[in-house]
Each structure stands twice: as structure tokens, then as C-alpha cells.
């Protein structure tokens, strides 16, 4: 879809921008009913596109075409309950809607002023039905300074962004602030890079500004590749102009006129939305030559990454941008001095760039009031795994893991027990229940042997085998290591072999020590952080769940009953009525029906441990251990 209402005219000064903002706002009636539909990736997967079309059609049919607006937006965050719809201005919140619900929503809530009770969210703790979006516990405990606008704007409409004050910060930066003042403001805010390392943003900017070279680059790292993480994707999809505005302000502060957005090609919606945003910003004179009449020039190109995880590493990303193999190089000379094409280059994560307009607009003091001593502001996490409310959340730094998992995440589904949470992507660590009081920030997570990373958070319950989890992440990293340096390529491979052996009952006394030795070689010897941090999942699971490793190695037993080679299925005779469901489900005819009301018989020699009988039995008559 092409932008609908592009002005077709450059904005030549801050006052023209202000006039445009006022004219857009004046044309909009804040009390006009608006159907806001989440069309982020999660809701799309649940059928949101169909819902958007059906809404438009139904509204037309019921004769509300000019009385009700329909807005398709980026991700609202509560993906577990998608597709989501919010009826503005009251912000009535309906969840898990389908095409079939739409006529009722339109006639009940738009034609009349009633609530469709059955589509409301019910608080699982109290059973209470919640009418308004702001009252949903999932949202109530968040501070959505970065994500909040996702629910207000159509990301393909620059006017929507301008209507909420978008690009006014750019005008302020270009006309009222010197580059040094901007860097100082970022310094005072305490902003640290959101890509994972947590390096103070102002220091990078300052070094790049002072680095020698006429041509400098700013780069947006949108090569998000952690399994289960989609926060950068959702920002680019839902509010691409905020990222662009941050980049332009940063470029002005650094003295750069050329920028790149390196985004995974597997994120087609993000690629499309940022592309549309760039086109619209150019058309309005907010990008390109003589931005807003200030004399400052800046252009941005999009580069689509091929999906290699290692290209999220800054030097590998730059090599890939140069058209070379995406492998890292040593950073003894920093990329702010010699980066892309050996020129000074400043790379920041999507969330970092999107934070910049907020900081410059509302001030460092406002920003630094949020967070902890060492880590200011908010962080977006993708809260996934065995947690009731999966989705994207944004909380002030310093929020405890318990608050995130229980108050916002709604706890563990199915009455199961919490076991661990893995933060920071595949190279992060697994944090056990004893440490759930940890306030989340860069330093605390590192102390716990894990890391912030780019904001992945995977919750695991008691049915998770921690050895198997470590093996899973190592296998991922083995696939994704570029293979350049010996410790990473050979070390991860060997760790993976040992872990696989342990999960198959081939573990030996001394394996834990070999794993620890290898972890040291990786940490001390690897070329980039993929390698230096790769052992984190192993080290933290050994530290906190050593008994599970020992059960696998010494007793050839998987306490969580996950590792196929170490478990056995059996029939609990007193519970089995001989219904035969498992007999039909078994792919190897290992189960035989004796007679009606007689327990079935499972032949262990034929059993391939697929678990089909266990899954199909509603009576709990199949035991797994």
C-alpha cells in the first residue's frame, strides 16, 4: 500500500512543520470513534489482516463509513491474545477476535454504545472482565515510552507520526541545539546501547564526532537474530519514523551525512515500513538535502541482511554492508574510528535510535529518572516461553524478574512450576528461581552470569531439561558461528558434542570439567562476542542446575523427563480402561489392546519414545519418567 496522504510538498522550516502538525491535528476529531487494530507480526499470524479488511467492509455496510475511522497499526505487545482491537476514544479492549465477531462489534459497540462482554479480557487471577485497555494488568505495569506510540499510529502514514509531535524534536535539535549540546544531553540521560553491550551511547557518538575523516556513517543495527526475540522488528514495523528521527539527530550530532539501516530480509514488513517511512520523510524534506531548511544533509539506505546471526555483530555487519563475507574482525581499533569502509562509523541498535528523540524532546532529566543507578530508561523485552502473557513488554530498568514474569507475564501456565528464565538470547544465561528478585539492568544480569542482550526473555517451567536447553542453544550457536576463529568454531562444536552425549546417556565423569575448560578457551580466545559469550548457557546451567547434569551423567536419568534416550513410557494399569486411543496413536504398534476394560500392554522393545500415547491419553494412564 502506498502512502495515501503525502503532501507532495517539502517542509522548509520548523514553523512550516509546526503548521503542518497543527493542520493535521485540527482536521482530526479526537472524539471520533476509531477502530485501532493491531497488525503487528504476532497478530498477523493470528489472522489480523483478514480482521482489518472485514472491519472496513462491515463499517461500510452498516453505514458508518464516514463516522468511524479504521486504523491498522504495529504491534501492541499483548501477542498472546491477538488479534487485538482497541476502540478509541474510550479504549475499549477486545481480544482474540475473529472475522465472525466483527458484525457484532460494529453493531453493538460502534452503532450503539454497548460492550461485547464475551470479547473482553478476563484477568486469570480474579476472573474479572476488563473493559479498558489501560486496566489490563499486562499493560498497567509497563512504562511504554518506546512502544506506546505503536498503538496510536499507522506506521505507513507520516502524518500520524507528525500528529503526535513526530519530527518536532528533529527541528529542535537542528535549530536550537549544537551537536555538542545534543551529545551532552544524551550523556546526561545515561543512555546505554540497547544492542546488548550497554556501552554509553554518548561516548560512541563523541568518539565518532572527534574521529578523523571527512565521511562518517551512522548505522542502525536491525539484524535481530535471537530465537524468540522480535522487539526491534516491532519497533521498525510499528513506528519506523521514530527510528529515522533518532538517526537523523544522531547523524547531526556526529557530523555524518550518510546512514544505513541493516535489517534482516526475513522481516518483510519491517523492510517495507521503513522503506515507506524513508520515502515519505524525503518527500517532506525531513531526509535528504537541506533538512527543514537547516542546511544539514542526511540520507539513509536500507540494506537487507541474509539472515546470518553473526551479522548482528557490528564488525560482521559492516563487512556484510561492504559486500564481503559477514565475519567479524578485531575491534582493537574501534569502529568509531575505522568502521565501514575504514571510515568512522557509529552503529546503534534500533531501540537506542528510537530512544534519542524522546531524550532530546523531554530532556535527560526526565529520561534518567527511570531505571537504576547504572542503567537508565526503559527496556523492551520479548517475553516468551512458558508464561501466560507472551508478548512484547517495556519496563523501566530495575524492574525485577519476578514482576516481569508474574505481574506482567501472568505467571506460568497450567499450574506448572517456574524453573528458569533465559535472558539475552542464545548467549545469555539461565537464571533460577532464587534470583527472581534481581532487578533487571545491564550490570545485575551480567553478575548473574547472564546478560541483557537485545532483550530476549524465555521463561521455562519444570518440564524443561536444563541440559537439553544448554544443548539447544549451543547447537544454534554452532550453526551460526562464522567459523573464522578456532575457539568458537571448534570449541562450540566440541561442547555441543559433549552435551549431546550427556542428553543421550553417554555422559562421562569429567564431562562437566571439560565443558568448563572449553568455556574458558572460548571466553579468553574468541574473536568476537558470539564466541566469548557462547558458553554462558552452559556455565549458568552448570552453576544453578548441576544436579541435573549429574543425574544425566551418573544415573543416566533426565529429571525433567525430556531427553528421549533417558526416558521410558509405561502404562499405569489401574488407570487404564483399555479405550485404545493410544493403540491407534502409536506409530510402531508397540501397544496392544488386550480386551475391553483391560489395561493395554506396551512392548518396550518396539517403543520409539515418540510420546504419542502420552499426549493422547486423557486419563493420565501413560507414565513418562
Amino acid at each position, binding site marked *: 500500500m502506498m502512502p495515501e496522504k503525502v503532501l507532495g510538498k517539502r517542509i522548509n522550516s520548523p514553523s512550516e512543520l509546526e503548521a503542518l502538525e497543527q493542520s493535521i491535528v485540527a482536521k482530526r476529531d479526537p472524539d471520533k470513534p476509531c477502530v485501532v487494530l493491531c497488525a503487528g507480526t504476532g497478530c498477523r499470524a493470528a489472522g489480523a489482516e483478514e480482521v482489518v479488511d472485514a472491519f472496513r467492509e462491515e463499517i461500510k455496510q452498516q453505514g458508518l463509513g464516514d463516522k468511524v475511522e479504521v486504523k491498522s497499526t504495529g504491534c501492541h505487545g499483548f501477542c498472546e491474545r491477538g488479534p487485538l482491537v482497541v476502540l478509541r476514544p474510550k479504549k475499549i479492549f477486545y481480544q482474540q477476535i475473529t472475522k465472525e465477531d466483527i458484525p457484532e462489534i460494529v453493531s453493538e459497540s460502534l452503532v450503539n454504545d454497548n460492550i461485547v462482554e464475551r470479547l473482553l479480557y478476563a484477568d486469570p487471577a480474579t476472573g474479572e472482565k476488563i473493559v479498558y485497555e489501560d486496566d489490563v494488568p499486562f499493560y498497567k505495569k509497563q512504562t511504554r515510552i518506546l512502544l506506546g506510540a505503536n498503538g496510536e499510529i499507522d506506521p505507513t502514514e507520516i502524518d500520524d507520526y507528525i500528529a503526535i509531535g513526530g519530527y518536532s524534536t528533529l527541528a529542535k535539535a537542528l535549530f536550537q541545539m549544537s551537536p555538542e549540546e545534543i551529545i551532552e544531553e544524551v550523556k546526561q540521560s545515561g543512555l546505554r546501547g540497547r544492542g546488548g553491550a550497554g556501552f554509553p551511547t554518548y561516548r560512541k557518538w563523541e568518539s565518532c564526532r572527534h574521529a578523523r575523516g571527512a565521511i562518517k556513517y551512522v548505522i542502525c543495527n536491525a539484524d535481530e537474530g535471537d530465537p524468540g526475540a522480535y522487539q526491534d522488528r516491532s519497533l521498525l514495523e510499528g513506528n519506523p519514523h521514530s527510528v529515522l528521527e533518532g538517526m537523523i539527530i544522531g547523524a547531526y550530532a556526529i557530523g555524518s551525512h550518510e546512514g544505513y539501516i541493516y535489517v534482516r530480509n526475513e522481516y518483510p514488513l519491517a523492510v517495507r515500513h521503513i522503506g515507506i517511512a524513508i520515502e515519505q520523510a524525503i518527500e517532506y524534506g525531513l531526509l535528504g538535502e537541506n533538512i527543514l531548511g537547516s542546511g544539514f544533509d542526511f540520507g539513509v539506505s536500507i540494506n537487507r541482511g541474509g539472515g546470518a546471526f553473526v551479522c548482528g555483530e557490528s564488525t560482521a555487519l559492516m563487512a556484510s554492508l561492504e559486500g564481503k563475507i559477514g*565475519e567479524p574482525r578485531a575491534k582493537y581499533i574501534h569502529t568509531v574510528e575505522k568502521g565501514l569502509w575504514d571510515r568512522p562509523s557509529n552503529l546503534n541498535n534500533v531501540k537506542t535510535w528510537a530512544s534519542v528523540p524522546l531524550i532530546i524532546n523531554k530532556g535527560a532529566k526526565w529520561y534518567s529518572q527511570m531505571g537504576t543507578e547504572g542503567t537508565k530508561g526503559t527496556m523492551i523485552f520479548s517475553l516468551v516461553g512458558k508464561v501466560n502473557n507472551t508478548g512484547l513488554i517495556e519496563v523501566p530498568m530495575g524492574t525485577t524478574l519476578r514482576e516481569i514474569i508474574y505481574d506482567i507475564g501472568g505467571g506460568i501456565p497450567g499450574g506448572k512450576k517456574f524453573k528458569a528464565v533465559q535472558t539475552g538470547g542464545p548467549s545469555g544465561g539461565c537464571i533460577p528461581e532464587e534470583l527472581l528478585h534481581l532487578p533487571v539492568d545491564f550490570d545485575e544480569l551480567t553478575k548473574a552470569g547472564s546478560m541483557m542482550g537485545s532483550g530476549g526473555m524465555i521463561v521455562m517451567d519444570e518440564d524443561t531439561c536444563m541440559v537439553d536447553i544448554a544443548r539447544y542453544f549451543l547447537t544454534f550457536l554452532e550453526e551460526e558461528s562464522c567459523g573464522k576463529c578456532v575457539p568458537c568454531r571448534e570449541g562450540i562444536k566440541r561442547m555441543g558434542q559433549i552435551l549431546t552425549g550427556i542428553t543421550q546417556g553417554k555422559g562421562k565423569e569429567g564431562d562437566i570439567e571439560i565443558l568448563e575448560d572449553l568455556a574458558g578457551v572460548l571466553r579468553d580466545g574468541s574473536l568476537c562476542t558470539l564466541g566469548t559469550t557462547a558458553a554462558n548457557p552452559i556455565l549458568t546451567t552448570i552453576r544453578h542446575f548441576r544436579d541435573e547434569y549429574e543425574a544425566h551423567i551418573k544415573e543416566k536419568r533426565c529429571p525433567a523427563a525430556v531427553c528421549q534416550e533417558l526416558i521410558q513410557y509405561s502404562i499405569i494399569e489401574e488407570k487404564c480402561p483399555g479405550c485404545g486411543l493410544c493403540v491407534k496413536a502409536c506409530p510402531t504398534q508397540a501397544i496392544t489392546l488386550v480386551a475391553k476394560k483391560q489395561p493395554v500392554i506396551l512392548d518396550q522393545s518396539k517403543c520409539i519414545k515418540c510420546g504419542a500415547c502420552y499426549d493422547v491419553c486423557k486419563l493420565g494412564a501413560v507414565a513418562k519418567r
Partner: protein
Amino acid sequence: MVTLTIDGREIGAREGETILEAANRIGIYIPTLCYHEAISPYGACRLCTVEVNQRGRVRLVASCLFPVEQGLEVKTDSESVRKLRKGLMELLLASCPDSERIQSLAREMGVAETRFALEENKCILCGLCVRVCQEIAEKSIISFVGRGTKRKVATPFFIPSEECIKCQACAYICPTGAIRFEEGKLVLPT
């Protein structure tokens, strides 16, 4: 000019020089595998890792890439350096147990055997052949393909290259004899 100390010896070095170059110049031995003075350093084997104290910050770095700087203190044979090199050689020995070069380096590091299952590789993916073909022969006939454990040295699509000038520099520089010429034809490492 900058002044730094390597293993307690104070030396002068020109700016831009690496620790390895400075050490070699004064006869201090640092083991290497993916380094050759005629081509650009790469930092893949990590054997040349040394311990540096940089204004109080102590860390392990690859000496083939780390530029000298004023006041830098370098230890080429500290305990943590030796431990890392041993770990690296144990991994390499398991990967290429038949290579004489690897065997002799392992002996040098005090690694008699490896705890890992032996493989039968010849190529250690040091990239010397790739760089010599690019920088000296200026042909770039071969490059790395694939990623991680699937990484290989190959010609494009594994098709014999007509551009190859048969200078044999790749075979000459290869430390393990993995890439070679047979009857005048390039044989890629398997």
C-alpha cells in the same frame, strides 16, 4: 615512536606496528599459525594471543592484530596465555591429528593428547591460502564458503577455475598441506 614493554623488555616501536611485529623484531618468539609476514594478519588461529596491560586493564589479545601503544605492557608467556594456547592446540589436534605442523605445535605447548574425538581434517581454515591468492597473486581464485563447522576453502561453486595462474602460492603457504597441486591442477582441501 612509542615505547612499550614486552616480557619486561622496554622497546621502541613505530606507530601502527603490531605487538607480533615488534616482538619478532627483537627476537621474542610468539607462536602463530594463520600469520605470514608477507600478507595481512587475520586473527583466526588465536595462537598468538598475549596478555596486555593497557592502562591498568588486563586482557588477552591477538598480537598479530593489536597495535602497539605508548606504555603498553605485554606478556607473551603468562599463565593465562599458556593455558589458552594449550586449549587451542587440544582443539586443533583433535581436528587435524595427522598434521605434522599441528603435532609439533601441540608438543611445544605441552599437549600430548586430546580429550576430543579425532577427526580427519587437513585444513585448519587459517585462511593463508585465501589471503595469498588475493593479496600476492591478486587472483582471488579461492575463498571461504559456508559458515561455522561447514566452512570450507573453495573455488566458486567448487568448479575448477580457469583464472588460476597455477602460481602454487596457496600450496606453498599452507601449514598443513591441505591445499595442493597435483599434475598441475589445484586440489582443494576436503
